């Protein structure tokens, strides 16, 4: 914003300083994760190695990684599939009051999820779904209002003339959807998938209540259980575990970064 060179240099220094402060908490995480004799203190490791990471992907911890992966990918895929098949008709057919309805649902979901969790828990208990499948279905239900609204907004931007042209050429509904609508709203679908994936990957409360045995814990609950423990805490293991747990959420974002920003602008403007 400033044309003045000293001014802009000061701004740059201030920004760099801020960035350093922002990432500084990570120093402890990284120093301990690579320290083979970690004590949980902030210190330069004497011996560097990957032992902690090896420990964090084997046994129970490795199992919890798979649980998290299954829950997150399952929820994201199920949400997107259910969302697409409903959002296309919602976008194209003139159903009276559909926008008001979707917004009401989204506002309803602002309700603290602990509230809906009580009846969800009872239903899952009765249906024998206090397991990963139950968590996937529950998270999909909780995600759906937002997924529907976003996907409908993205489908709205696909020009209907293209579909008309395809129809004239003899394309069926299925072909129109899979060859035109879906490829053209790829960015939007990626955003929705990403939101559901990270949402489910980070989800803590629902699996905390649904998962009864340590084998079924996803990483969020596993990490919480491990650092809440009294007694000797293995910091090396915990920090390595944290890094592995954080990696997919961060990684997926950077993979989809360009799409994300496009999609994000859409959310912001439509509000």
């Amino acid at each position, binding site marked *: 914003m400033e044309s003045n060179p000293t001014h802009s240099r000061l701004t740059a220094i201030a920004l760099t300083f801020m960035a350093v402060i922002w990432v500084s908490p990570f120093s402890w995480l990284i120093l301990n994760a690579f320290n083979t004799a970690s004590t949980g203190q902030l210190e330069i490791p004497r011996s560097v190695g990957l032992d902690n990471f090896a420990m964090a992907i084997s046994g129970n911890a490795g199992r919890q990684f798979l649980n998290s992966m299954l829950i997150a990918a399952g929820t994201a895929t199920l949400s997107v599939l259910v969302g697409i098949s409903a959002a*296309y008709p919602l976008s194209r057919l003139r159903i009276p009051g559909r926008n008001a309805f979707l917004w009401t649902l989204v506002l309803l979901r602002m309700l603290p999820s*602990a509230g809906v969790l009580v009846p969800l828990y009872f239903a899952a208990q009765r249906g024998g779904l206090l397991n990963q499948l139950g968590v996937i279905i529950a998270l999909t239900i909780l995600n759906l209002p937002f997924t529907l609204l976003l996907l409908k907004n993205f489908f709205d931007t696909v020009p209907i003339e293209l579909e008309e042209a395809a129809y004239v050429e003899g394309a069926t509904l299925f072909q129109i959807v899979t060859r035109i609508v879906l490829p053209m709203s790829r960015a939007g679908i990626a955003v929705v998938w990403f939101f559901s994936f990270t949402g489910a990957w980070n989800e803590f409360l629902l699996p905390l209540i649904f998962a009864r045995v340590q084998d079924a814990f996803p*990483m969020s609950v596993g990490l919480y259980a491990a650092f809440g423990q009294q007694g000797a805490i293995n910091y090396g293991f915990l920090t390595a575990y944290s890094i592995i747990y954080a990696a997919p959420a961060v990684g997926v974002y950077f993979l989809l970064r360009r799409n994300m920003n496009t999609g994000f602008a859409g959310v912001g403007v439509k509000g």
Partner: protein
Amino acid sequence: MKNQSNPWLTSNLFVLALGMLPAALLIGVLLYFTAWAFAFSFTDLALVGRKSVEWSWVGLQNFERLFTRKGFLDALWTTVIFVFFSAIVGQSVLGFLLAATLRGTRSGIRSVVEVCIMLGWLLPDIVAAFLWSATTSQTGLINALIVVPLGFPPINFINDYALPVVIVANVWKGTAWSYLLFSAALDSVSREVIEAAKVDGATPFQRIWLVMLPIIRPHIATNMLFITIWTFTYFPLIFAMTGGGPGRQTETLAVFLYNQSFARGNLGFGSAISVAMLAIVGVLSIFYLRLLREPK
């Protein structure tokens, strides 16, 4: 009725309806459960024990308890402080300042700062809680780098200043969202308007306060709506860092709700808390949506 004249849609209405069926079913389940959550708030249902089976209707007793017993009002006050300082003052103002400053800087610095802030946002809640517990502990980064070198004895931040610590942690975690939204908003402000203000001799502060802010007011309202509601019901970070303690210093409504419903098993009272939270969130949303609609 323009859209419905499209033949590939009208001839396939059955298929389209079939496609909507799973979503309709799940939404129905969501509405049904929400209705139950409301209904539970008028009962003395418990998580375990006799009252988990033989519960009975108790009328408005749970709602009376919200105001007559200690807990709810204290938690509400803690939540207000938490939301005000971490979401409105912290995330929103900081996010806006960053967006406004980074707009004019070189793209190299811009992406470095962006990535740094994003890391906090992308980090899972529980990892962030773990990280901040360690950073603010007696041997943690803040003590090792600032407090001890200055000659003071190490401070146990998480015990002595629990609420400020969770507020800072939440600012650290959540600023990226406000930054991204404001950044997209400021991109929609045309350069000509800013240049014109510059030519007319507006100071940087005036340019922000009198030119940019009024233009992006709808975005500010949208952002406020989202982050207020999220922060209001935000649970994992505080729960994993402090569990609401020490004492009840950091017991926000979301933590209070969890403790009442699942730690103590008072599901009926817990449902009343979540209904009360929904009412508060609803009033806040209407307030912000008003702000959004008002003419500029």
